């Protein structure tokens, strides 16, 4: 058994690759000002939002796709993408009983039961199918605590003042090429508002499912935690297997005020393409949180296992004095997957602290890069950062890179960076095997050991889930 067979092991059939056969309403391919207007009118949006979209669209036209990441892919034809697709059942239903059973079945199959009897007991779920949210569970219970959890389209209708106050304030539409595109055409996503002093009584979770081929998914998530509020939020995502690439360009904005905290976890399992690199999702995501208040805290945890291409840097702007930013990441790439991911910690306020723990696992012919920026501004007296970036290589065809950037304008700031690279050796695997542990289990034991620091950060309900997902990704026929 050579290390090449360790590589084979990491290839496994994608378990979420089915397509739901359901009638959808789609608009014609292509992007223009008319398409932006059409999306906005389909959603019956107030004028401020239409103006927001149009401004973003015009900015996007002036911009060019970024080319600095360690990624290679053919140019994307933005006129060959459908920007809006929705299951025909258009109106959001008052009760789950009215939701198309095919949709409920889809989410059942994905392990996200939505119906009263089967739903997870301590997790509220917003389920997004193609471009629209089809159901949100536990809304009433959350409302009793003053917590708003709904699709962003609903929030635009019910709470326009909150949307107008916060949308685009963390990630301006012209922040980058993909955020501009998203701001112009975003269709749905989740909105969370935790009022002053409230600790959200349950985990919140959004599950994104792309179903249609040739459809781009552009969701928008906005989470606001007022003074002293706290919430833990998790997003999951899957897509069917198509042999064309699909574009996913999301924007997530987090705002935390004094003494508030948001813990945002992602388990990303978009279709990664086949073993020859055909098909798969292009995942270009902008995620950023702003610690506006003193002693506020944002913690990003991500487990990235899917997508043909991942371009993603969940970041924290640490404005408030003594605010804290954290980033815990596991990125697994296999076959011909490419990931360029990391974080930015922007220290603005005094005594701000940040922690970065990144674990990259590369197998097959994949390439896995960590790219991180730690920036310490002139007012960030006593700022501290600790970064740890570890790479694990499986087989000898995979690549791992680390690009840490440190910019400090504060002579007394403490910035520590540690990095390591390891390879699963034949002798380590043999040792475990010679104790009766199967080859696949041996690999997955070593991989989950490598990721432990990050998995420990996931909400309990999902830590085992993530472990299982990695094990699945590592499962396959042993050569």
């Amino acid at each position, binding site marked *: 058994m050579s290390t090449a067979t360790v590589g084979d092991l990491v290839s496994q059939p994608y378990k979420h690759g089915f397509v739901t056969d359901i009638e959808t309403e789609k608009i014609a391919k292509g992007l223009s000002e008319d398409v932006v207007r059409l999306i906005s009118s389909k959603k019956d949006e107030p004028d401020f939002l239409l103006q927001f979209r149009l401004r973003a669209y015009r900015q996007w036209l002036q911009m060019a796709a970024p080319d600095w990441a360690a990624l290679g892919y053919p140019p994307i034809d933005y006129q060959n993408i459908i920007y809006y697709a929705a299951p025909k059942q258009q109106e959001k239903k008052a009760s789950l009983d009215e939701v198309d059973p095919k949709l409920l079945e889809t989410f059942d199959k994905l392990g996200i039961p939505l119906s009263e009897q089967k739903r997870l007991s301590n997790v509220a779920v917003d389920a997004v199918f193609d471009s629209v949210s089809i159901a949100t569970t536990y809304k009433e219970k959350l409302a009793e605590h003053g917590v708003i959890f709904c699709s962003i389209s609903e929030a635009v209708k019910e709470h326009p003042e909150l949307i107008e106050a916060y949308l685009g304030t963390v990630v301006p539409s012209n922040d980058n090429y993909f955020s501009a595109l998203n701001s112009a055409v975003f269709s749905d996503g989740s909105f969370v508002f935790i009022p002053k002093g409230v600790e959200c009584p349950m985990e919140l979770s959004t599950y994104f499912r792309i179903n249609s081929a040739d459809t781009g998914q552009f969701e928008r998530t906005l989470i606001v935690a007022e003074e002293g509020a706290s919430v833990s939020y998790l997003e999951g995502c899957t897509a069917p297997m198509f042999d064309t690439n699909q574009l996913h360009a999301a924007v997530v904005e987090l705002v935390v005020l004094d003494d508030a905290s948001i813990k945002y976890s992602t388990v990303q399992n978009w279709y990664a393409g086949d073993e020859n690199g055909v098909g798969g999702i292009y995942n270009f995501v902008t995620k950023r949180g702003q610690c506006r208040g003193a002693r506020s805290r944002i913690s990003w945890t991500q487990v990235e296992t899917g997508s043909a291409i991942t371009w993603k840097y969940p970041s924290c702007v640490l404005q408030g004095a003594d605010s804290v930013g954290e980033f815990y990441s596991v990125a697994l790439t296999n076959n011909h997957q490419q990931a360029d991911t990391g974080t930015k910690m922007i220290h603005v306020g005094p005594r701000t602290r940040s922690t970065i723990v990144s674990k990259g696992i590369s197998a097959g012919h994949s390439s896995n890069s960590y790219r991180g920026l730690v920036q310490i501004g002139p007012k960030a007296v006593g700022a501290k950062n600790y970064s740890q970036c570890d790479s694990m290589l499986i087989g000898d065809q995979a690549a791992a890179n680390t690009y840490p950037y440190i910019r400090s304008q504060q002579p007394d700031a403490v910035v520590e960076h540690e990095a390591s690279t390891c390879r699963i050796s034949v002798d380590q695997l043999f*040792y475990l095997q010679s104790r009766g542990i199967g080859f696949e289990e041996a690999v997955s034991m070593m991989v*989950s*050991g490598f990721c432990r620091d990050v998995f420990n950060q996931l909400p309990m309900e999902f830590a085992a889930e993530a472990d299982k997902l990695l094990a699945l990704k590592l499962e396959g026929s042993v050569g």
Partner: protein
Amino acid sequence: MIRPDAPLLLDIRDLHASVDEQPILKGVNLAIRAGEIHAVMGRNGSGKSTLSKVLAGHPAYTVTAGSVHYRGADLLELDPEQRARIGLFLGFQYPVEIPGVSNLEFLRVATNSRRAERGDEELDTFAFEDLVHERLKVVQMDPAFLERSVNEGFSGGEKKRNEILQMALLEPLVAILDETDSGLDIDALRIVADGVNQLAGPDNATLLITHYQRLLDLITPDYVHVMAAGRILRTGGKELALELERTGYDWVDQELARLEPETVEVA
């Protein structure tokens, strides 16, 4: 204990094996019956560890000729993990470190995979804790080692004790201990030898690879084999080890020269 009618556990015949096309084992013959303790000695590089790893199924070695039967079944057909589950154990000369994998969890998974093969029920974390604490006493090991990653940062002697702990948990039928005595201090040597003696019984067998009589003073072998250039050159009783202690391995060269004149390198 030699009993000619005891079941044959391991039957190695004319075993040849290579690494990277280079032959290392050149015709090993060895039969081990239940209840027996065998010692294999021989110069550095004579092929002792290679023999042990080929038996355990290390992927780097290719068997080019010969056969190995374990309780009548073809051992070479099996994956390393299957060999372990049916009761073959290798205590490594150089146990590897496995960062991030908890020693306790590793021991539990390993123990359960052997138990499953024997039809015993799986031990949950609580039941396993009880078992492991009982077996820790065999090697007088500090329970703190359970909390660490497998062998990570263990001293040489601690790694060897961890090997015997694994053996005590897995209860193998054939235990191959590759230089388990090297790197042990005097007290640890006695503890490990006591452990091996406690675990040895009429139904299982032990193959000790060692360079030193001091281990064989504590564990009395039924047979002593001398390996040279990839084969077993001579077999005797426990007195052969004492003789080697006096005479060294000079005689090996002459004997080898008779067997295959062209390949002998004079040490």
